[in-house]
């Protein structure tokens, strides 16, 4: 029984003894389970089913970080020891522990039962991914604009991998994207075992079995040579943290000869250049699934808007924009948390009767307020860039106040513009950039949107 559980947990993973004990002990004292599982692992290793490796050699074998000396003597081995601070959040690794591994699980072929149909462009994107897999490429870029329907484009690839009885991983930097994606994948592949992995799950959930895994990129550290195909969704979501740890985790989780698919609406400069030079096979889906153009942002002069804001006033151009759309919902982006309240107050003062609220990452009522906006109980939602992606609301108009702030990168602005005009019923949203001086990032964002519209015609 325990043997079966340990093997199931280790399939395609690399786990420490502590992870196995906390996931499988079920209330038993730690020490007893530890001894029992260690003994079992030794047997499995002798049988050649499980392999083990010292968790820290020169560097941490899980995350690659340089280890830190443990003050005093180690309570485990009783000697001078070291531990890794780099992946501490995944459970502590010390030099006297091992990473245990076993071969990846066999998956069952499972058909995609999604009832919709792909547009011609989506089909091209989907086909390119399946081709990349069949041709055993190591990397592939899917550049799909906001609203292109990228999740559906992944279905044929997932189906092809499952048909070969292999598991698939979809990883994304953000937990909320995992939570949104997991049920959609499960619904599309009802016969497959789909499991979601992100921080904060219970120990036994961390070792759940999977044919299709949906996980935050951090969780990739727990997998080893497990997937012939690793799909990284929103690869650019943390623009400044294209960190070495993520690259390492991804390359460890994917099979040695596996395929890594990068999916993004806003590829980084590096990815774009690699694609241009032919180093990275790329397919672009430059049109939304409903076929209409991406809304092109319009620039509006906002003058010294911060000065006006101190007097609880907004730029005339913004007031006009809000009046024009008084019967529609507006997402209004501002550069900083400190701008939220003054802008909200000014909107409330200048446009009485408009229901207006604000959100930022630290807002305790964030989820409730976004939900109220979705339910059309709020007319204007003032937000920081935290809502730049992932939020899809029918017929929403978007405005950015103060695009000259460095936080509004080309990527952020394209994502923000991508919130508008998502539904086939209202494919033409208004996107307005209010500025005190255009930035090259903003000019590039508009040029990119125009080019995608032109090239996909």
């Amino acid at each position, binding site marked *: 029984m325990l043997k079966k559980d340990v093997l199931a947990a280790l399939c395609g993973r690399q786990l420490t003894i502590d992870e196995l004990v906390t996931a499988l002990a079920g209330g038993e004292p730690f020490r007893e389970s*530890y001894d029992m599982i260690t003994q079992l692992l030794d047997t499995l290793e002798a049988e050649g089913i499980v392999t083990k490796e010292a968790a820290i050699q020169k560097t941490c074998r899980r995350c690659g970080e340089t280890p830190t000396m*443990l*003050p*005093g003597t*180690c*309570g*485990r081995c009783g000697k001078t020891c070291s*531990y890794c601070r780099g992946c*501490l959040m995944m459970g*502590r690794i010390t030099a006297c522990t091992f990473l245990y591994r076993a071969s990846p699980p066999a998956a069952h072929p499972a058909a995609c039962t999604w009832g919709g149909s792909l547009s011609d462009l989506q089909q091209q994107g989907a086909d390119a991914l399946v081709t990349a897999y069949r041709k055993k490429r190591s990397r592939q870029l899917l550049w799909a604009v906001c609203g292109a329907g990228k999740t559906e484009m992944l279905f044929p690839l997932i189906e092809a991998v499952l048909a070969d009885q292999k598991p698939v991983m979809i990883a994304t930097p953000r937990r909320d994207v995992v939570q949104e994606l997991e049920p959609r994948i499960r619904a599309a592949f009802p016969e497959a075992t789909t499991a979601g992995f992100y921080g904060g799950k219970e120990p036994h959930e961390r070792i759940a079995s999977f044919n299709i895994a949906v996980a935050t990129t951090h969780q990739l550290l727990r997998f080893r040579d497990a997937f012939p195909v690793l799909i990284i969704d929103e690869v650019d979501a943390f623009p400044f943290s294209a960190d070495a740890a993520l690259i390492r985790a991804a390359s460890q989780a994917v099979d040695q000869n596996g395929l890594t698919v990068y999916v993004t609406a806003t590829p980084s400069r590096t990815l774009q250049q690699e694609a241009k030079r032919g180093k990275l096979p790329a397919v672009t889906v430059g049109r939304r699934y409903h076929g209409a153009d991406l809304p092109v942002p319009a620039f509006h002069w906002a003058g010294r808007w911060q000065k006006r804001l101190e007097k609880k006033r907004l730029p005339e151009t913004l007031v006009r924009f809000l009046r024009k759309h008084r019967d529609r919902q507006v997402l209004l982006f501002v550069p900083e948390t400190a701008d939220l309240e003054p802008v909200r107050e000014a909107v409330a003062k200048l446009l009485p009767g408009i229901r207006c609220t604000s959100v930022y990452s630290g807002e305790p009522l964030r989820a409730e307020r976004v939900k109220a906006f979705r339910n059309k109980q709020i007319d204007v939602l003032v937000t920081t860039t935290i809502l730049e992606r992932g939020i899809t609301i029918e017929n929403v108009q978007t405005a950015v106040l103060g695009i000259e702030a460095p936080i509004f990168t080309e990527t952020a602005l394209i994502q923000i513009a991508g919130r508008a005009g998502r539904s086939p019923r209202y494919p033409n949203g208004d996107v307005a950039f209010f500025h005190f001086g255009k930035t090259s990032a903003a000019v590039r964002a508009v040029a990119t949107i125009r080019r995608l519209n032109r090239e996909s015609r």
Partner: protein
Amino acid sequence: MKLIVTGTCLLCSETIYPAGDWYSLLQTKLPSLCSACTAKLAPISQTSCCTICGHPDSKPRCAACQPEDFMQRSLYPYNDDVKDVLARYKYRGDAALAALFQLPMQRLLRRLPKADAVVPVPLHADRLFERGFNQAELVVRRPKLLLARRTLSAKQSKSTPVEREANLREAFHVTGNVTGMRITLVDDIYTTGATMRACKDVLMQAGAVSVCGITVARSLRKSPM
């Protein structure tokens, strides 16, 4: 050549730059915390706390504290920020964070009667094995391991407070000669003080002449007195 020595914050990994004045620039050792994290760890004022239990803003003594009660001092109030840091230290096992507490704990020690030995509250061997280190042992320099813990204290919910205290006393035993010694106990968190009182009883029985305590953090009373 690198003119300015920078460091990394032990808690948030933020880069630390020396302050702009000449004195700071000439220091070769930087603080281990950035200014934001330093602000989160605001120590208890030792000049206005209770002289018995160390509760902040209770000088000279809380209403409930008696002069003969167990005397102890704490570094920080056990608020949400301190709770996060201690959870990372103790449960995540980020032992390097002990370095944050050593110097201030040493200063705290000097506020109490002189000690012949600084003795950490021990962990049970199984717990020590599981956690990998004793969190109370690392926060002071030169700890003397003069106490040991017998069994993991069993479920105590049904027993009376008196029985519980007796059980707790049973759990500890002295492992060295403490005759005639003045001892200061060390622990990470002070809540009711039951653990430290149990250790004190055991040490006094073994011949210690006085026992007091220092802790990294202490819980606060619900309502101000």
